[in-house]
């Protein structure tokens, strides 16, 4: 198997992009990544597109086939990868394996979603189609609902409070305010969303005990990466970023079948696989992008990947250990909370963000100084299909 590196990345600002179609979003991000890679007139051999909702929201399928034509990348191989909110991560994995195997030399991976062309209710319903079709969906279970129940259990078991969740929300919004790609470029205050009696309107419950600012926004957006063999990447001008490790694991479809619903086994397993492949430990990671679709998930994932012991993630967040400059900066991009969560884009966007970090390209107020190793966790379903990637800056 060959070592695989990232030689180009591209992302477009997430948000409400009424003027752009899903294909526009995918094309813009792809072109930015192709430019960044400096491929010139060399084309790519294959294209993997992470997308969850094209068939439902846009009533459009075979998206990858359409994209290669639009980008004049014919006759590149093309596939759409649908794996719920982990579609982006799965697309990266497919690209990685294709290059690692030696079958393809240059692969474009792009993830994108256009969710704001339907009402919030319909977007929530669309995301809920990943729940169990017989024992969850018909009873009205939504992802915010699941996250609310999960949070309640986590609070009971580990003493997590709204204060801890608020610390994550404020940190990620503060970072999102500095990220031009973020959907919600706005800082929030503890007074405005927790302490003041006015917070009852500013930050209403969405799925008790989770409130509005505990949840990511519904967003449009896309992100892309170009993969190639490490040896080829070393010949380019930019510092190559090696995909040093990856892992993927699954868990029961329904939460109720798990021995302990607060135990995110697939997160632990995926991260463990990625660390073993990279020959690194959690303590070696300098920056992480975790899948904080809800604030509780950042806390839980920070424990399950091994940054903190179980029950200590919330304390660490409140103590500022996950801020820029802290013990392990998490979601310096603003995370899903502020950057947004166009579901098919997220797994790719996390890899793009860590690539920015490892290339040391970000402005000082967002750059983790001297970052060499980064981790991403892309969380599908409610933790039933999880992908983790360990990325490493390669010294030239």
């Amino acid at each position: 198997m060959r070592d695989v590196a990232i030689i180009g990345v591209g992302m477009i600002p997430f948000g409400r992009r009424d003027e752009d179609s899903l294909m526009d979003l995918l094309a813009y991000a792809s072109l930015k990544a192709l430019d960044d890679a400096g491929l010139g007139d060399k084309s790519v051999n294959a294209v993997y597109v992470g997308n969850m909702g094209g068939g439902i929201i846009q009533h459009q399928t075979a998206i990858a086939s359409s994209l290669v034509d639009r980008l004049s990348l014919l006759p590149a191989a093309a596939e759409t990868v649908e794996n719920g909110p982990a579609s982006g991560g799965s697309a990266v994995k497919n690209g990685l394996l294709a290059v690692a195997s030696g079958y393809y030399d240059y692969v474009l991976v792009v993830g994108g979603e256009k969710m704001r062309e339907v009402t919030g209710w319909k977007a929530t319903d669309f995301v809920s189609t990943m729940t169990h079709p017989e024992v969850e969906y018909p009873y009205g279970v939504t992802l915010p609902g699941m996250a609310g129940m999960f949070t309640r259990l986590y609070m009971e078991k580990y003493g997590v409070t709204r204060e801890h969740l608020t610390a994550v929300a404020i940190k990620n919004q503060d970072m999102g305010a500095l990220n031009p790609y973020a959907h919600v470029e706005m800082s929030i205050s503890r007074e405005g969303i927790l302490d003041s009696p006015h917070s009852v309107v500013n930050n209403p419950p969405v799925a008790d005990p989770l409130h509005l600012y505990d949840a990511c926004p519904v967003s449009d957006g896309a992100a892309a990466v170009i993969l190639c063999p490490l040896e080829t990447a070393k010949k380019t001008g930019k510092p190559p970023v090696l995909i040093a490790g990856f892992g993927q694991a699954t868990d029961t479809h329904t939460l109720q079948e798990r021995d302990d619903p607060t135990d995110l086994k697939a997160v632990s397993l995926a991260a463990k696989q990625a660390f073993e492949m990279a020959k690194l430990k959690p303590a070696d990671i300098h920056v992480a992008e975790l899948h904080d679709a809800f604030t509780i998930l950042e806390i839980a994932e920070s424990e399950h990947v091994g940054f903190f012991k179980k029950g200590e993630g919330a304390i660490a967040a409140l103590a500022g250990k996950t801020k820029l400059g802290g013990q392990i900066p998490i979601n310096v991009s603003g995370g899903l909370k502020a950057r947004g969560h166009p579901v098919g884009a997220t797994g790719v966007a996390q890899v793009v963000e860590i690539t920015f970090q490892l290339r040391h390209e970000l402005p000082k107020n967002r750059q983790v100084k001297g970052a060499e190793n980064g981790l991403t966790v892309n969380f599908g379903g409610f933790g039933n299909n999880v992908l983790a990637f360990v990325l490493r800056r390669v010294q030239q």
Partner: protein
Amino acid sequence: MPLDMELEAVLRPPALEMKPYPPKVITLANGKKMVVREAKREEVPTLLEAVHPTLFIPRDFYDIVGARLYAELLAWYRYRVRNEYCLVGQIDGYLVGIVNGRMVDEKVGMSYHTLAIDRGLRIGAHLFAAKMEHHIEYLGQSEVLIVAESPIGFRRWMIEYGLEPTEIQHELGGPDSYRLTREMYFDSKPRLVVGDRPAPRDLLDYALENVFVADEETINVKIAGLKGR
């Protein structure tokens, strides 16, 4: 041409006595303080400047809300509508939202429009709540008749307040009105109506003395840009 005041007296509708809306201050999610106060009639030209850019923003039906609000404010300014009031929200002096309505009679209120110029901070929700507070608590009315012209409005008013449908034609000429009763208002108040009174003198004085309108491009970006929840 000077007004013919004799004819003007015929054209101007008689007005009910309307109790003033006491100003309040609301802390928003970003920690900023929004002053909510009743606008004075002589402020209407400034308010129209703030509303004007929205006439050309189709997103979320801002154009229709803006055009109607513009006309309603003008009618109030030039005495062609009866018993109208207008409340405004200001942050650091900047107008961030405008709401209006009128008294149909002593008992019944007619909600007109809610225009959030800055978005993503629940300014519309806060100002609509202030409008209901004015009708029920200060004007002492029994009920308010309401319609929504956008899906967002429907979610914010009809669903969040649990309004009841009626067969009463709303003055805006669209669908039949929904009704907010005193009982429904006071049931909803703990979770939907907030604000500190008396408004701190320094904040209120600043808001009264400095009424700023953002430039057209800023208003466009805030309402129809990529960002914001």
